[in-house]
């Protein structure tokens, strides 16, 4: 007996071939969604695995504290605190790397290694060379990122200024540490491997240089299972307060861990949001195309059923058809996603320093891709297929074309439009549901393009806001100690300095009920030009005589409202504790800032008019000279340059964002082509007789195509309108989903972005129009006369 499916399978293949252009465009849409999904899902898995392995093998601590100096005996007391797991003490110091070739001072974080070499926590992974010989005072390990950037190899020399004394070292090897996956100098927004090094030296070296024999100034610890975190932190702070403890922090406030966590959030968001969008549109297109296919094959289905064909094989036939599309799309998407993922992981390597970061194709992601694609495709086909197949055989199987009635159009129509544009308009009005869906389909593509492009606007805004409006100084100099405001005169005299302003910056803990945050509290001169708190619309926020200005995210984190009182615990000097009212909220985009007038801060610290940071506006022509003079000045702890940050920002952040922006734009255009082309093909198919009739009546190809293209143009224009409305909303949704603490990306969309997105839509539509035009040219007039529906 002949299996009933045999002929039908051949028919499925023939249908696929006949619809190939549409099949390909829908498969590509599914592929885009799957590609983003597979890429993000495997990046997420790769990062997560690399992090977890590194953290586990390296015993990454849960809590971090630094302090001034405590005798080793104190460590024993800390270990007794309930909830503390493994606790390690060490000596850590900030040093200066001597590098006359560098314009900016190069800073280093030097950490002591115990005599046995490997510390109990934050265990190192040796990447090259050997461990420092504890018997020699001049050997150090250097973090891989700095070594790579500076071309340092084992055996190379390195000079550092430790506690004011120049010392020569030899690089014994390079290493990685779980606490410096992302190596940043405390307080810096981004890792700057050129100007920041991590060095590990035998304990003796540091004890000698900083006079720390029998003492420590840095504590890291893991938490015991079930530990009550706030209580552990509070007890540690209590125990260390006499020794200059600056407050225990958890991983949440650990710079390296937070950057990693942010990137993980980012990838997870991308893995969910983008595919959802693509699948939505692909499902819509499948519904339209399969619906149309079934519609044109009504007669065939009816006669098959009249011949006694059961519904089962017919249903299976159509599902086979859509499954083929789904599986093809998923297959292409998985390959593309895999390639993209490999590429992104390569980009990560220069960014996140892991001992092992292996990219794997995630089997679960592959399976999920197939399952989701199939489900979406089946779901899309379900409605039209079952509706027709389950109809009783031969019953009312005439297609129902749209019915036009004399009353269905407003009277002014006749006055305004030529007869041909009326055909176009009624083509849209005659199928209101399909037209609306098509417009929405196009409308969904536009936000995707905007989602890709808005990053540049948002970054522009962030850079503009942060570096041009808020931190307006070109160079910031941190002094080793607070000095009288008159010290400013020394800076004003330097060649190239146009403006100098003194600031007082102290580390504090801000506390509101049980919520705390470690911040640098900046005392700013009221009316100052170089640091200006702002609101999101750029308006200046005057620094009040009294009272705090906090950035919005900090206010949210502390659960504050204007007028509330904030407890400020100063983490240096006499460690004063004061309550200060919150008087204004600022909108900075990078980091979280806390500001006070400098006079109020001096009063709070019970000191005279002192400054410890100098902000400078610099004449670019004299930059080099200025840095030379600064290098020669005493009592300067660090110097940072805005230009370096801008370059880093460009280098690190913009590069990564470019990748996803480019992808989203490309995929957005794919959606436009997919929607417009499919809608046009379906329309062309339905209207072939009508259009051929017009050609027979003597209308030119241009005129006939014009009718169809007018319809498409109306759909595209309406779709663009919908898209513009949706774009802002989509951007907000994406940002809400990826919201992280280290920095918030503002939902800023420049009008030029809208223009580019609209142009992209028009270009994609024009491409479709051209393809459709070709098809209209090929209309076979004689065949159309014979084939009678």
């Amino acid at each position: 007996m002949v299996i009933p499916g045999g002929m039908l399978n051949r028919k499925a293949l023939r249908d696929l071939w006949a619809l190939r252009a549409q099949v390909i465009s829908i498969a590509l849409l599914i592929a885009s969604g799957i590609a983003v999904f597979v890429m993000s899902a495997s990046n997420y898995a790769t990062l997560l695995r690399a992090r977890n392995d590194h953290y586990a093998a390296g015993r990454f601590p849960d809590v971090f504290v630094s302090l001034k100096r405590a005798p080793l005996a104190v460590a024993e007391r800390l270990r007794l605190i309930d909830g503390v797991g493994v606790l390690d003490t060490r000596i850590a110091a900030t040093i200066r790397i001597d590098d006359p070739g560098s314009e900016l001072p190069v800073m280093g974080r030097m950490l002591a290694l115990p005599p046995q070499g490997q510390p109990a926590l934050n265990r190192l992974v040796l990447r090259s060379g050997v461990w420092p010989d504890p018997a020699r005072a001049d050997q150090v390990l250097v973090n891989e990122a700095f070594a790579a950037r500076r071309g340092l190899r084992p055996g190379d020399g390195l000079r550092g200024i430790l506690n004011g004394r120049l010392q020569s070292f030899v690089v014994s090897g390079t290493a990685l540490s779980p606490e410096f996956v992302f190596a940043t100098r405390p307080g810096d927004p981004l890792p700057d491997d050129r100007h920041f090094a991590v060095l590990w030296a035998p304990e003796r070296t540091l004890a000698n240089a900083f006079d720390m024999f029998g003492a420590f100034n840095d504590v890291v610890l893991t938490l015991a299972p079930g530990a009550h975190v706030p209580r552990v932190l509070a007890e540690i702070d209590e125990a260390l307060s006499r020794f200059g403890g600056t407050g225990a922090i958890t991983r949440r406030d650990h710079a390296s861990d937070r950057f990693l966590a942010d990137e993980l959030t980012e990838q997870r968001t991308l893995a969910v949001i983008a595919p959802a969008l693509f699948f939505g549109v692909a499902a819509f297109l499948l519904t339209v195309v399969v619906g149309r296919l079934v519609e044109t094959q009504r007669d065939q289905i009816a006669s098959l059923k009249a011949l006694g064909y059961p519904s089962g094989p017919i249903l299976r036939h159509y599902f086979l058809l859509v499954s083929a599309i789904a599986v093809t799309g998923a297959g292409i998407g998985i390959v593309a996603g895999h390639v993209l993922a490999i590429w992104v992981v390569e980009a990560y390597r220069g960014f996140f320093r892991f001992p092992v970061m292996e990219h794997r194709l995630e089997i679960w992601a592959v399976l999920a891709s197939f399952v989701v694609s199939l489900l979406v495709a089946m779901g899309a086909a379900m409605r039209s297929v079952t509706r027709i197949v389950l109809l009783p055989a031969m019953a009312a199987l005439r297609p129902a074309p749209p019915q036009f009635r004399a009353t269905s159009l407003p009277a002014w129509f006749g006055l305004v439009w030529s007869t041909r544009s009326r055909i176009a308009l009624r083509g849209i009005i005659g199928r209101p549901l399909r037209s609306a869906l098509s417009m929405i389909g196009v409308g969904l593509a536009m936000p995707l393009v905007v989602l890709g492009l808005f990053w540049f606007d948002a970054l522009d805004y962030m850079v503009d806001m942060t570096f041009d409006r808020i931190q307006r100084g070109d160079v910031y100099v941190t002094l080793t100690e607070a000095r009288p405001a008159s010290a400013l005169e020394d800076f004003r005299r330097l060649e190239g300095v146009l403006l100098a302003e003194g600031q007082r910056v102290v580390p504090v803990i801000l506390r509101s009920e049980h919520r705390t945050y470690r911040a640098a509290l900046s005392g700013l001169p009221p009316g100052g030009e170089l640091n200006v708190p702002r609101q999101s619309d750029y308006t200046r926020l005057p620094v009040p005589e009294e009272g705090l200005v906090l950035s919005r995210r900090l206010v949210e984190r502390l659960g504050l409202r204007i007028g509330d009182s904030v407890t400020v615990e100063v983490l240096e000097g006499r460690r004063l504790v004061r309550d200060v009212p919150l008087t204004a909220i600022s909108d900075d985009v990078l980091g979280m800032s806390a500001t006070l007038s400098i006079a109020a801060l001096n009063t709070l610290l019970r000191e005279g008019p002192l400054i410890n940071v100098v902000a400078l506006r610099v004449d670019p022509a004299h930059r080099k000279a200025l840095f030379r003079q600064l290098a020669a000045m005493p009592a300067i702890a660090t110097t940072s340059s805005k230009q370096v940050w801008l370059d880093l920002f460009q280098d690190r952040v913009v590069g990564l964002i470019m990748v996803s922006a480019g992808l989203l734009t490309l995929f957005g255009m794919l959606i436009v082509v997919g929607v417009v082309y499919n809608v046009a093909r379906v329309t062309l198919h339905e209207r072939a007789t009508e259009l051929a009739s017009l050609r027979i009546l003597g209308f030119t190809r241009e005129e006939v195509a014009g009718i169809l293209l007018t319809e498409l143009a109306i759909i595209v224009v309406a779709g663009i309108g919908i898209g513009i409305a949706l774009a802002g909303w989509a951007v907000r949704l994406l940002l809400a989903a990826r919201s992280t603490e280290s920095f918030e990306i503002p939902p800023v969309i420049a009008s030029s972005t809208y223009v580019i997105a609209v142009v992209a839509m028009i270009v994609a539509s024009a491409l479709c129009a051209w393809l459709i035009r070709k098809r209209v040219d090929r209309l076979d007039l004689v065949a159309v006369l014979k084939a009678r529906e």
Partner: protein
Amino acid sequence: MSETSRARANPGGNSAGPPVVFRARGLTKTYGSGPNAVHALRDVDLDIPEGEFIVLLGPSGSGKSTLLNILGGLDAPTSGEARFREHELTGASEEELTAYRREHVSFVFQFYNLIPSLNVGENVRLVAEIAADPMSVEEAVALVGLTPRLHHFPSELSGGEQQRVAVARAIVKRPDVLLCDEPTGALDSETGRLVLGAIEKANRELGTTTVVITHNSVIAGMAHRVLSLRDGRIVDVSINPERKRAGELSW
């Protein structure tokens, strides 16, 4: 009155009489090649003088539609030549054929091919808008007796009414040539007579050269000349000494 079995339909034309508008020589249309080739037209010669009403008869598959479509600039012959006045139809570009149809030809088919989204008046206006010297839409609609239905859509009309709209649409531009392929094929005899009446009116009053394909030999009574096709050849040409009016036909 039949002539030879391989009749030449008025070759060379009469020396007197109206000028010839259609002139075809050796028209051949072949589909496929080799043993499977289908010969739709075989070496057809034809001259049609201006203003003549011609009926094409012949069994199914004899090549009537093929011939009509070539004359109307919808199809191209495999070989041979056809010209309308000074227009060379064979070898003409798609643009030239479109312009030819637009300026000179109107069609009426068995299936009405109205634009479903346009009402009666608009379907007719559609053509009037691209014609050089159209009659008014109202006039054309009145010619087919559909003035009361001017604002109705095709889906609101019967088949016969739709066909009359098609005829109104065909004659509104005062075409030089009216080509009809089984215009009454789907209609009952009474409606058929109405439709034929409108076609006849165009032929008599506007002097439109008219070619009508039909399976109904009664209709042949309206023609000046009746051409019979078989197997792609004109096998018989008969001239009606007296033409019947559409109203006088009965079947």
